[in-house]
């Protein structure tokens, strides 16, 4: 049992590191894309080719607001679910 636990430990560690790497890569890419979108893009001419790689700028507001609202909804649902489960267990 100790052998499998040790190999489990190593795979758990590398899995953690892979998840951490992916997460940091995702956050950096989101940050750079968003920065370029909001700050750098208005400085280009409107017929420049780089505009077709970015959505119209209204989406730069809609997408974060939508994501924030979805996150708050998910949190509320999760809290409600946990509260209901604990109440059912008590009763």
């Amino acid at each position, binding site marked *: 049992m100790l052998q499998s*636990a*040790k190999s489990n*430990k190593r795979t*758990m*560690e590398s899995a*953690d*590191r892979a*998840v*951490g*790497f*992916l*997460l*940091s*890569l*995702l*956050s*950096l890419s*989101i*940050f750079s894309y*968003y*920065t370029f979108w*909001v*700050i750098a893009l*208005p400085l280009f001419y409107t017929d420049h080719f780089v505009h077709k790689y970015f959505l119209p700028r209204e989406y*730069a*507001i809609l997408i*974060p*607001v939508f994501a*924030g609202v979805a996150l708050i909804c998910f949190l509320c649902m999760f809290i409600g679910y946990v509260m209901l489960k604990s109440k059912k267990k008590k009763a």
Partner: protein
Amino acid sequence: MKHIVKIMAVVVAISASWLGLLQTSIVSQDYTWLLPIYFIVSLGCYGLLMVGIGLMQFPTCPQEALLLQQVLYLRFFCNLLLYIILAEDILEAKDFLKPRGVDVGSD
């Protein structure tokens, strides 16, 4: 209470500076309207980055996790053994005490 006052003071200062930036238009107004959302998104990104870097750097205490796992196995096994050993005595005690009106447990 002091914490709330401090946080409120920071929020008021930031919004006052944002409104001042909007009025005097040091940067163009298009940028100023998007600035709060930009800061919130970049704050979220920064949090994710810190979580990712923390996961990459520090091993998640594997020795402690291993010990904890073993302790949990041990406790479960001991409880199981005790239950098996004492099951008959438990049943006897329950049959003895229940007619005498003693509250014999919740399962």
